[in-house]
């Protein structure tokens, strides 16, 4: 009963707060009347009775406030009142409002953008029906398994369904006279049935019609591909020519559909996996597809793993492929299971989020500084409210309501900042040949994160000023005035500013270390001659690349070499420092005369005759020639590091390297030693490399590269190289660029690191400078009388300016010392991201940070200092 009564009262009080206040006032009036009546009855004259009654009652507002507290709805009721009150107060000071909201908007915007990118790239779940029942399955074969492994697992019924997919690098799409390369997702016939991808127009293809052995010619397009090439046209039923075969479009996926491919990679088109597109599916031991399984309703991941293990090991026995029998991973789709690169990308984002968090803290410190300054001006108001019976808790509530308003407004601004950043990111094209979509979109996760940011920034920006403002809220404050009593509060602002300078110098040091890294990267010698080299990527339709005895690319090269201005040209499976850098191999090799195989880790490239000459890599001995073809003695070229490491103390030329693997033994004779170059990244150390002759390869790949050294600007030769390829095979896709632009890929990590961290560092420093400016300007205004006296007593402008500069120099010096000290600690774990040879405590970066911060600090205090020197002593003295 009682709780019910109480609840009724609270609800009544909440809705009728004003009524209840009126009620109380009536009651107090009636009380005073009673008192007066009583006194009059005892012979006190009426006016005197009135006075006494009033005195006896004491503070009416205090009683009202106390009664209101007693109703205890006050938390909510007061909160609404505080918001209104706070809003009125804030709009009266538009400068403060704009500065605070802008600060928080920038800080929150940076956090939201990075968070939504991270959540999109790392945690987005593929578009599917009940994605929580979809699992990624990996075996001892690696991320991919042989095609028959998929087929037999699906046939066994071990899960409700098992599908396979393969993100192929490209298929050639002919439209009109043009052939371009598009990114296909090759999927098993049952893929759409198992995954349940929502389709916008038309339909998906089904298991019965899309069986691999039928060579199905069906296609499902993604919305992005459709829009880019067909606009709003209806494409269902159209026939598109992929790899010179007609495919009928049966459906289009909706906008924003997310694929199984990791890290935001979106294919252009889904095609049924078939021998014509991926001949390797016929090979029993070649891993071709990634597995995706659908759990039966109620089946747990653990049960699925157990069932898969049993079935897979039985199949592995049949195949004689024991690795297939080991289930290494069964995990829900999306998130950490999507790719092995997850950890690296996640660490990268964690670093960025921490940095962005520091930027937000700097922004909050700015707002805190502004609020502290404002609370100094409001001491009188606070003291009055305390005298009227407001408790400290009540006052804290009121102050926090104000910072909540600021933070919420800032977060709204942050969303605007994010959508601007998202629009910009959507236009960024990364120098990689994969269509990665950078989305920053609004979703529940992002909103929850935004709400958390509002709470954090409310507390960080509001709690300290609120505690400070209410701590000395005594009646003495009513007397008002500024004066030395403000010193304590001002001390707090100084701490805030020194903290901001420290945080921003930390950010700047990190950013500058990465800028140095970028500069050093550009200076790193790649080990080959980049100038006047054209790189062409050539993709043949599967089957048209020729045979081991006569790769088609040889005929192409004959034409290119005959072009005037081309000095040399060669084909290769890999171009150093691009996405196709070759293969990182770790295997057992029998090297030289020793009888035992040794473990060797090296970069392997399969190159055609003239490759080393074209790239200007020096060779001792000889490089491959046109006679190093199948049938001739197998030969190899090693680089200096390989020679030093695996042929210590002997000359490798003429010695043998054997690959003793049972299923495919191979042996080569070393005929040359090439100079070292960089293969994967510019930052890598010396890496051993093994070159094999492309004319001795098992079978040519449909994807190959042509490099050509030219006498003039290499761009000019792009068209001729393309014509040479198309004259031999018009169905091939040719993409040409200069070696210099191809290397943009190698600069990508350093560039992204330097740009993002540089932007965040600059943002943090700018916010800190706004804070510094505010504190010094306020200090000058507070010290106007003092400075006036000094000037009246003959102090020169110069010495007054020095006084003010010294004050800010102290703050900056303390902040810098702390920030650079932290920088020494913080940059150490970043060494892994840096070029070898760059000290993470790079003195240049630290010195530049100090110079930069001192410079911008001088700018920040320039205006207040000027004001201080222009003080008119007469006017200044009159103000006190």
């Amino acid at each position, binding site marked *: 009963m009682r709780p019910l009564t*109480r609840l009724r009262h609270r609800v009544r009080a909440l809705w009728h707060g004003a009524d209840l206040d009126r009620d109380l006032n009536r009651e107090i009036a009636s009380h005073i009347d009673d008192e007066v009546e009583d006194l009059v009855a005892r012979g006190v004259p009426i006016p005197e009775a009135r006075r006494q009654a009033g005195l006896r009652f004491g503070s009416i507002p205090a009683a009202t406030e106390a009664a209101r507290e007693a109703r205890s709805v006050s938390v909510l009721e007061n909160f609404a009142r505080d918001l209104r009150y706070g809003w009125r107060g804030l709009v009266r000071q538009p400068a403060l409002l704009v500065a605070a909201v802008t600060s928080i908007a920038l800080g929150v915007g940076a956090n939201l953008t990075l968070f939504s990118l991270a959540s999109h790239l790392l945690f987005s779940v593929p578009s599917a029906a009940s994605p929580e029942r979809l699992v990624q399955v990996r075996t001892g074969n690696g991320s991919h398994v042989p095609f028959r492994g998929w087929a037999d697992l699906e046939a066994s019924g071990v899960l409700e369904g098992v599908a396979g997919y393969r993100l192929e690098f490209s298929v050639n799409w002919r439209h009109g006279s043009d052939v371009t390369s598009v990114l296909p997702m090759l999927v098993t016939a049952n893929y759409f049935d198992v995954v349940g991808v929502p389709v916008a127009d038309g339909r998906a293809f089904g298991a019965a019609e899309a069986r691999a052995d039928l060579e199905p010619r069906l296609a499902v397009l993604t919305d992005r591909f459709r829009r880019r090439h067909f606009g709003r046209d209806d494409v269902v039923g159209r026939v598109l020519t992929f790899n010179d075969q007609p495919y009928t479009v049966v459906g289009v996926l909706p906008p924003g559909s997310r694929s199984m491919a990791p890290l935001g990679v979106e294919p252009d088109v889904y095609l049924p996996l078939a021998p014509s597109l991926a001949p390797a599916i016929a090979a029993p031991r070649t891993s071709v597809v990634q597995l995706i399984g659908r759990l039966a309703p109620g089946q747990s991941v653990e049960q699925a793993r157990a069932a898969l293990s049993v079935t897979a090991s039985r199949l592995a026995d049949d195949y004689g492929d024991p690795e297939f029998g080991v289930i290494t991973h069964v995990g829900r789709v999306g998130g950490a299971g999507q790719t092995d690169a997850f950890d690296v990308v996640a660490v990268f984002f964690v670093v960025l989020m921490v940095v962005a968090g520091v930027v937000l803290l700097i922004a909050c410190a700015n707002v805190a500084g502004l609020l502290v300054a404002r609370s100094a001006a409001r001491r009188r108001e606070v003291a009055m409210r305390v005298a009227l019976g407001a408790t400290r808790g009540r006052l804290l509530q009121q102050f926090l309501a104000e910072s909540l308003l600021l933070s919420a407004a800032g977060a709204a601004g942050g969303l605007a900042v994010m959508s601007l950043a998202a629009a910009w990111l959507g236009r960024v094209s990364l120098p990689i040949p994969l269509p990665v979509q950078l989305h920053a979109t609004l979703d529940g996760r992002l909103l929850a994160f935004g709400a958390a940011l509002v709470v954090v920034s409310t507390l960080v920006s509001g709690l300290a000023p609120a505690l400070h403002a209410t701590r000395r809220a005594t009646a003495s404050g009513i007397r008002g005035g500024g004066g030395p009593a403000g010193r304590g509060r001002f001390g707090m602002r100084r701490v805030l500013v020194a903290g901001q300078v420290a945080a921003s110098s930390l950010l700047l040091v990190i950013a500058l270390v990465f800028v140095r890294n970028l500069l050093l990267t550009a200076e790193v010698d790649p080990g080959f001659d980049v100038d006047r080299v054209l790189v062409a990527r050539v993709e043949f339709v599967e089957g048209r690349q020729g045979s081991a005895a006569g790769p088609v690319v040889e005929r192409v090269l004959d034409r290119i070499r005959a072009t005037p201005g081309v000095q040399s040209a060669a084909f290769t499976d890999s171009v150093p420092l691009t996405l196709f850098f070759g293969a990182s191999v770790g295997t057992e090799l029998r090297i030289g005369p020793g009888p035992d195989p040794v473990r060797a880790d090296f970069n392997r490239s399969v190159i055609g005759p003239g490759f080393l000459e074209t790239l200007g890599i020096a060779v001792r001995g000889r490089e491959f020639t046109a006679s190093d073809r199948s049938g001739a003695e197998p030969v190899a070229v090693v680089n200096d590091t390989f020679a030093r490491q695996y042929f210590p103390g002997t000359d490798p030329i003429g010695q043998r390297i054997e690959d003793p693997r049972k299923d495919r033994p191979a042996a080569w004779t070393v005929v040359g030693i090439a100079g070292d170059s960089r293969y994967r990244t510019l930052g890598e150390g010396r890496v051993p490399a093994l070159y094999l002759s492309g004319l001795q390869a098992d079978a040519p790949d449909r994807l190959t590269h042509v490099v050509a050294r030219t006498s003039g600007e290499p761009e000019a030769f792009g068209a001729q190289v393309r014509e040479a390829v198309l004259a031999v095979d018009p169905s091939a896709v040719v993409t040409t660029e200069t070696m210099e632009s191809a290397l943009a890929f190698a600069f990508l990590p350093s560039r992204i690191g330097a740009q993002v961290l540089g932007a965040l560092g600059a943002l943090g420093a700018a916010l800190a400078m706004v804070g510094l400016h505010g504190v010094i300007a306020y200090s000058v205004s507070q010290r106007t009388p003092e400075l006036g006296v000094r000037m009246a007593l003959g102090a020169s402008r110069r010495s007054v300016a020095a006084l003010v500069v010294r004050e800010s120099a102290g703050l900056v010096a303390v902040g810098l010392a702390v920030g650079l000290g932290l920088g020494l600690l913080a940059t150490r774990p970043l060494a892994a991201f840096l070029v070898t040879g760059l000290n993470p405590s790079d003195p240049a970066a630290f010195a530049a940070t100090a110079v930069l911060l001192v410079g911008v600090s001088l700018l920040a205090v320039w205006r207040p200092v000027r004001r201080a020197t222009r003080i008119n002593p007469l006017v200044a003295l009159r103000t006190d």
Partner: protein
Amino acid sequence: MGKPADLLQGTLDLLILRTLGTGPKHGWAIAKRIGQVSDDVLQVTQGSLYPALHRLEHQGWLSAEWERTDGGRERKVYALTAAGRRQLAHEIRNWQRLSGAVGLVVREA
């Protein structure tokens, strides 16, 4: 003479409940009655009386009604509820235990 003895925390509730135990009264009468009965030793400051009344009403121990007096004035009259009566008995027991204990300490210690 200093201030009239500050009421021990919580005793005001007891005094109000006890005073209303003899019948419904309005605020002024409650204060007056406490003063009279205690020979003006206990002075309830009005600034604390009304917050206390509102709190007790809120907790469901008092009910309140506006009444019109013969003189045509309005008064808010408070009365004990059933819960209020139980609370009164409870507080009296507490008080007796406390005052007995304090008395013991004063005499014996």
